[in-house]
């Protein structure tokens, strides 16, 4: 593999970012807690932009409050706005939980959110208050994925109980689609496992139509469930990279941040099972093997058959995909999973790119591809304009990633298969599946069809069969 400094010219600025900011990730996590209303402690714009971004993807109401910093707040501190914000949220929403994410502004002026929460609780000790959780998410540290992991870890560390180890397991799937979450729940249920899945926004960000308007959409992991994470017998955590990007970009804080499963292992002695995103047959096999061990039961027939059908599809479709050159981009753990899958079907990832900066993407990709693609470039801290400038040399046949790379695939006239987040230019992003044999089947069908469609449309003969 080449030692990559890949774009011909390195730019100081970021041009069409392939990442979002940390409070967005935390907001997604807070939406996955039952009865939770998120608040961003910062300017009004942070909350509004993040709402707009999530709404365009999930097509659901996404209410996120803001403490709405003014010039005065910035100079004298956010205490008053914080308290007013909490009071107004309670008055309008009366939520079970308030999830507070910091923003670059509040972090820069040194706001101490845990202290603000403590003080608010002390002053209002006589009242029945919501549960408060928080995440430190300045946007100058890492990406939305780091904000996501920070929030998962912080919520768990805040709530996980001590106690005797139970028979249940934890599952921390990372930033996947609501349909992925539903599929995971089905799998765990079919294994007869008692589990805590967190965060669970499978309903709150993909709700059925309502009889009555719900000011806080139903769904989410209940606080009582998150408490149980402390007494689980094991934690499954998807992703090899997790929160390393955020840690890398910190300079003022040397203390290592833990992921939820790492924290539980260290502080609650919950065994941590490290898995990649279960995309493709090999990574999914690992996941199911783990579930067999944890449940003491064989994989239910339903999933054996899903796997069998997937193998059958790989065989039926292999010639359409073999040797095709793909540019794969997005969140680091998602691209690791996608590359693991593409390697199984003979698609060559010519560029693997992410806006994340964990520093270990290249190592993980190399490990997972076992050195099969010596020409492949793996670039962290990537932006779309850099990808755009590399395409001439890379000669890709297909793009696999989020919506934001569309402009490049359009210029090249090649297909883009939309995965991950954000998918702003197609309908049904909430229902896209990536995980398990079932999710892989969907990905395989979509990728194969995209390549067939390309061939069909560029053929002088309009074949009606393949």
């Amino acid at each position: 593999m080449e030692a990559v400094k890949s774009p011909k010219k390195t730019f100081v600025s970021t041009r069409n970012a392939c990442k979002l900011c940390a409070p967005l990730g935390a907001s997604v996590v807070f939406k996955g807690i039952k009865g939770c209303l998120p608040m961003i402690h910062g300017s009004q714009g942070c909350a509004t932009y993040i709402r707009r971004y999530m709404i365009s993807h999930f097509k659901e109401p996404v209410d996120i409050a803001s403490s709405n910093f003014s010039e005065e707040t910035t100079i004298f501190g956010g205490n008053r706005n914080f308290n007013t914000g909490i009071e107004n949220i309670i008055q309008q929403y009366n939520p079970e939980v308030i999830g507070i994410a910091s923003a670059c502004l509040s972090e820069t002026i040194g706001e101490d959110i845990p202290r603000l929460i403590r003080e608010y609780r002390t002053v209002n000790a006589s009242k029945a208050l919501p549960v408060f959780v928080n995440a430190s998410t300045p946007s100058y540290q890492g990406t939305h994925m780091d904000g996501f992991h920070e929030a998962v870890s912080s919520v768990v560390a805040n709530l996980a109980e001590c106690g005797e180890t139970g028979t249940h397991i934890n599952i921390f799937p990372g930033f996947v689609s609501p349909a992925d979450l539903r599929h995971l729940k089905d799998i765990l249920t079919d294994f007869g496992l008692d589990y805590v899945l967190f965060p669970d926004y499978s309903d709150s960000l993909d709700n059925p139509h309502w009889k009555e308007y719900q000011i806080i959409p139903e769904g989410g992991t209940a606080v009582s469930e998150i408490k149980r994470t402390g007494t689980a017998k094991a934690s499954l955590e998807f992703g090899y990279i997790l929160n390393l990007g955020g840690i890398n970009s910190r300079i003022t804080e040397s203390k290592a941040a833990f992921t939820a499963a790492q924290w539980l292992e260290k502080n609650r002695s919950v065994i941590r099972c490290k898995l990649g995103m279960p995309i493709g047959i090999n990574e999914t096999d690992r996941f199911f093997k783990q579930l067999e061990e944890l449940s003491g039961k064989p994989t239910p027939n339903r999933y054996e058959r899903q796997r069998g059908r997937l193998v059958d599809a790989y065989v039926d479709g292999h010639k359409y995909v073999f040797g095709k050159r793909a540019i794969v981009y997005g969140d680091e753990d998602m691209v690791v999973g996608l590359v693991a899958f593409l390697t199984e079907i003979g698609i060559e990832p010519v560029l693997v790119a992410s806006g994340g900066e964990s520093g270990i993407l290249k190592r993980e990709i190399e490990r997972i591809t076992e050195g099969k693609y010596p020409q492949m470039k793996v670039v962290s801290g990537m932006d779309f304009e850099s990808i755009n400038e590399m395409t001439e040399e890379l000669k890709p046949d297909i793009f696999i990633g989020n919506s934001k790379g569309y402009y490049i695939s359009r210029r090249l006239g090649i297909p883009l298969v939309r995965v991950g987040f954000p998918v702003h230019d197609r309908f049904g992003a909430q229902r896209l599946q990536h995980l398990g044999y079932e999710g892989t089947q969907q990905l395989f069908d979509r990728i194969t069809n995209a390549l067939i469609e390309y061939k069909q449309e560029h053929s002088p003969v309009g074949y009606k069969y393949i």
Partner: protein
Amino acid sequence: MDSILIERKNQVFRTGTDAQTIHCNKPSVAGSVSQRACVFCGSRVVLYPIADALHIVHGPIGCAAYTWDIRGALSSGPEIHRLSFSTDLREKDVVFGGETKLYHSLIELIDQYKPKAAFVYSTCIVGVIGDDIEAVCKKANKEKGIPVIPVQAPGFNGSKKDGYKIACEALATLIGTGDLAVPEKSINILGDFNLAGELWMLLEYYKKMGIHVNATITGDGRVEAIASAHKASLNVVQCSGSMMHLAKIMKDKYNIPMMKVSYFGIEDMSDALYEVAKFFKDDEMMAKARILVREEFGRLMPVLKEYKEKLQGKKAAIYVGGSFKAISLIKALRLIGVQTVVVGSQTGTPDEYEIINQLCDEGTIVVDDSNPIELSAFVKETCADIFIGGVKERPIAYKLGLGFCDHNHERKEALAGYEGMLNFAKEIYATAMSPVWQFTRQR
């Protein structure tokens, strides 16, 4: 629980029954889920359509990422505006300052993309860490020979509306520096952003009347034309919330008169043409305007009449960015038989709210800087059938079982001008009459 926070009670009133006037121009209440964005956003959306300029956001990545290609503002030529540039500040930059990073970013981007000007937006933390972006801009301007204009818009420094003002002031530094030849009887179009090509329709109308359009600010905007905007004889201002400030500056500085118009709905659209002809006291121009309006009315009215028959009795809720647009929407809806029962805006003005008060039927709810809880309560109370708003209001409307029309800056359908009125009617009809509501109606 109360759907309206105590601090917000005077920002809501009902026409005919409440004697008080509405309070507006206030900062959003902490903890309310305001539909507004921030100062940065205000300036960013106004300047965004200038297509041959470089727009670089000096701050951490979020502000640039969320405003990448954010408006449906089309360009007939260059499209530098559709790229998102950021200094992507990291923790070390926050600690040690980001000026050097900004300087190098500007130089490399100007070399690479060859813009005619650069706008440099400051964000929240730049306001706090105290980077001197003005000095960096001056240095880059000196080296590269193009205007490099600081847009001092830290998000906390007021509301979205203050961002509009900051954008106007940034534009004012550019205006007067250009020397394009401009014929007599020319106008500038202020406050149309060429969403879905709306500006191009307006240009066609003015062309038919024999009027030269000098600068379009900022829809399909070009640096050179804007720099020469001071040579026009009249500023025609739409979206007055964002652009009146610039028109006032130009009146003070260059003595250019201004005229407030709206291009939404056929009445307001026609008035906009007549008023410009009147301004030039040109009979031929007026005659041409009359012919144009007559033709368009002849084409539109029979179709609109059909829509009206089918839509009669439907009720609409409007929640948009500025109250001036809301006024046109109320009239346009009335033309197709739809009654407005809720009307609000993020950044309305007292005068415009008063016009709305006069214009609407008794009992209409008027609201400033609303939020999802209020909007959902108002819509339920008034039994509205259709919601007109932006992306953030759409899922609320849909979850409530209402039809929806996107009238915000992300829209892909042209809704201004005569053709726009047809599109508007068509969209309202499509959303109100869809058979899907049979599965959702609970009332």
